[in-house]
């Protein structure tokens, strides 16, 4: 009951306060947040989540703003709850200080009253006295309730019933507090408990200060002062409200700031992306706007420098390519005109060779033959350089591959007869239509068939045509000398000859297959070779139904089925 004994009592208060009083206070304040999060329906939630994930992946700005707001919310939450805790502690502490001081003086007053009462011969008198004293010290403003109750350690035979000043009675006093009060007659004990009070919807946290009172006859009795903490609770509710709304405003502000700041960075980056895309699309004159001297301006400057460099390089290449094309075209024209004259003169001389002596007549024949070769070589060289210069263009029209094959075979029939080869064409009997450049495909096929005839040693030549969903194909198969292992990759090389030591009896320029391969590539098609020594060779041209589309598989096997059991494709 002395001033020094207050400290341990306060300790009890602070240890029990967290468990009951503030726990219930902060719970109600935090309740709205989980409730609001739980309101959405599952489907709407899923679509919003997927949209958010998409935005998170796609937008740097969204990511930065969200992250900043999350971090802001976290920091505000930590700081807010700490402050809230401290304010709560403070409020309860000052109330406790005030309440203990008040309780102490009231207890002293009550004790003095009891001592000065002489009508204490029976318990009824004591009870009556106690009732009047309690009513007196409880006061009239109902800011506190007073309960007088017999301690459990009391062994006196005189028993007085608990005396209360209002709706709070001894059942509301926790046993823990009662025990603590009973143990130590000199010390005030403090605890916070929740008590249902009239006019309140829920339990009201109350500060209970307990102390021993020495009653006449009845002896050891506890006097308890119950102070409802309604005011403190409503103060804390207001404070949490302020914290929450302030927190929301702050987070929104942080988000806004992050948005503005990232915009400053993201806008130039987005602009750079846009400009880069345009550059990639071929609009080489696109540039970024470089303002100021900051990092972004230097990004724009270096970007522009890069674009400048790219543009210069591309222009140079274009110029080179143009010069090359121009050169090829000029050479073509310049060579062709005199060659025409030579050719006509040669023909004229050749036609009248019967009038010459044998040596001159033979020379005229040689001249004509070599002119043919020279002309073919020139034409092929020009074609190759046109491919190299990237000047070759497709002139696509929808055509039935069977018709193209028939046309070329027709043109080669004469040569085949001369060499003693028989050409057979097998087709599926249905149109094999595809969009391709018939002139180029005819050239490829003519090349393959003439090659087949010339290397076929008079054996039959088989041609197969077929089509599937995405492609059409033609296979030219001969039964001549064939190709040695490793040669299938070499046949398409320029000026490649199967056997360098072999006499050049056949008239090819050595560029035919190289040009054929380029023609196939121009169509995004395939041109492949197969061959085995003594078994002949097989060339397959596969063309996509629409030019430029990807070929999944060829409708015809490259290797002859009878000779190879491997995968037909």
């Amino acid at each position: 009951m002395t001033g020094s004994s207050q400290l341990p009592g306060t300790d009890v208060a602070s240890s029990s306060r967290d468990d009951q009083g503030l726990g219930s206070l902060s719970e109600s304040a935090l309740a709205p947040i989980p409730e609001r999060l739980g309101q959405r329906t599952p489907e709407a939630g899923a679509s919003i989540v997927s949209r958010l994930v998409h935005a998170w992946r796609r937008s740097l700005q969204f990511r930065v703003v969200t992250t900043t707001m999350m971090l802001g919310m976290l920091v505000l939450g930590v700081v807010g709850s700490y402050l809230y805790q401290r304010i709560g502690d403070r409020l309860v502490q000052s109330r406790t200080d005030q309440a203990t001081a008040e309780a102490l003086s009231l207890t002293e007053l009550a004790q003095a009253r009891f001592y000065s009462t002489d009508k204490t011969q029976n318990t009824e008198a004591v009870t009556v006295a106690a009732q009047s004293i309690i009513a007196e010290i409880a006061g009239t403003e109902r800011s506190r309730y007073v309960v007088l109750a017999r301690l459990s350690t009391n062994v006196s035979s005189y028993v007085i019933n608990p005396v209360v000043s209002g709706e709070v009675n001894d059942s509301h006093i926790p046993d823990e507090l009662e025990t603590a009060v009973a143990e130590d007659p000199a010390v005030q004990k403090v605890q916070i408990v929740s008590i249902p009070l009239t006019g309140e919807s829920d339990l009201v946290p109350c500060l209970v200060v307990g102390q021993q009172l020495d009653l006449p006859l009845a002896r050891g009795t506890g006097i308890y002062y119950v102070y409802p903490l309604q005011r403190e609770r409503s103060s804390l509710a207001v404070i949490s409200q302020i914290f929450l709304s302030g927190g929301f405003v702050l987070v929104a502000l942080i988000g806004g700031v992050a948005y503005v700041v990232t915009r400053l960075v993201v806008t130039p980056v987005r602009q750079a992306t846009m400009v880069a895309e345009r550059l990639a699309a071929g609009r080489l004159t696109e540039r970024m706007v470089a303002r100021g001297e900051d990092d972004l301006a230097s990004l724009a400057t270096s970007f522009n420098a890069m674009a400048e460099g790219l543009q210069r390089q591309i222009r140079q290449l274009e110029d080179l390519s143009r010069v090359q094309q121009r050169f090829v075209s000029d050479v073509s024209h310049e060579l062709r005109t005199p060659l025409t004259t030579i050719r006509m003169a040669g023909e004229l001389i050749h036609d009248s060779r019967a009038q010459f002596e044998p040596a001159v007549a033979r020379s005229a024949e040689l001249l004509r033959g070599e002119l043919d070769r020279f002309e073919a070589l020139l034409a092929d060289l020009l074609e190759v350089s046109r491919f190299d210069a990237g000047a070759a263009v497709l002139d696509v029209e929808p055509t039935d591959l069977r018709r193209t094959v028939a046309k070329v075979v027709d043109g080669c029939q004469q040569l085949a007869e001369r060499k003693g080869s028989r050409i057979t064409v097998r087709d599926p009997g249905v149109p094999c239509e595809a969009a391709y450049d018939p002139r180029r495909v005819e050239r490829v096929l003519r090349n393959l068939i003439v090659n087949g005839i010339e290397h076929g040693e008079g054996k039959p030549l088989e041609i197969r045509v077929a089509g599937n969903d995405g492609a059409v194909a033609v296979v030219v198969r001969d039964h001549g000398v064939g190709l040695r292992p490793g040669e299938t990759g070499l046949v398409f090389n320029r000026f490649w000859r199967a056997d360098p030591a072999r006499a050049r009896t056949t008239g090819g320029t050595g560029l035919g297959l190289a040009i054929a391969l380029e023609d196939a590539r121009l169509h995004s098609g395939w041109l492949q070779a197969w061959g085995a020594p003594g078994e002949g060779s097989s060339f397959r041209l596969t063309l996509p139904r629409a030019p430029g589309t990807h070929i999944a598989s060829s409708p015809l096997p490259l290797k002859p089925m009878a000779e190879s059991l491997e995968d037909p494709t």
Partner: protein
Amino acid sequence: MKGRVLVVDDDLALSEMLSIVLRQEGLDVTHVADGTSAVAAFRDSRPDLVLLDVMLPGMDGMEVCRRIRAESGVPIVMLTARTDTVDVVVGLESGADDYVVKPFKPQELVARIRARLRRGDEPEPERLDIGDLQIDVAGHSVKRDGRALSLTPLEFDLLVALARKPWQVFTREVLLEQVWGYRHAGDTRLVNVHVQRLRSKIEHDPERPQIVVTVRGVGYKAGPA
């Protein structure tokens, strides 16, 4: 074969060679070396056929071709050193009937010239109706509602070939043989370009042809409007 040929070529050696070859075939040859004087020479000599080099000093071959075509339907055969699609098509679109790529064999050139000069040998009176057109084969005229349409001899031949067998589909190769006189494979672009030119003269809406109809992937046929 009689006929006058105007050779327009700046290469003197080639021109002389051409003259030798063509004279051997019994043709009269006039020669002009530049584009600027070609049109005047054409008016002077009134040739039956013009042999025109594409690359000419002064005025280029395409322009000469356009100017001659503007005043006459005379057969024009172009001599070109280029086989690029664009060059060939531009040459044909400027009005040439046929073209020969350098270096050519003399027989090839003579065959092309003969094919162009051969026409007009069969003056059997014959009248054809296709769509709302009336064709007088012997009189070389095409009329719509009594109004004559001006076609070059080649366009006329093309139309007659199609109109003689309406509903039969002609492949480009067959047309090349019948109209241009190619015995072996020729350039099917000749057919495409001249069909376009013909349509632009005879169709009400060349974008939606009613008289000369394309049969996709095969060729052309004459269908009534």
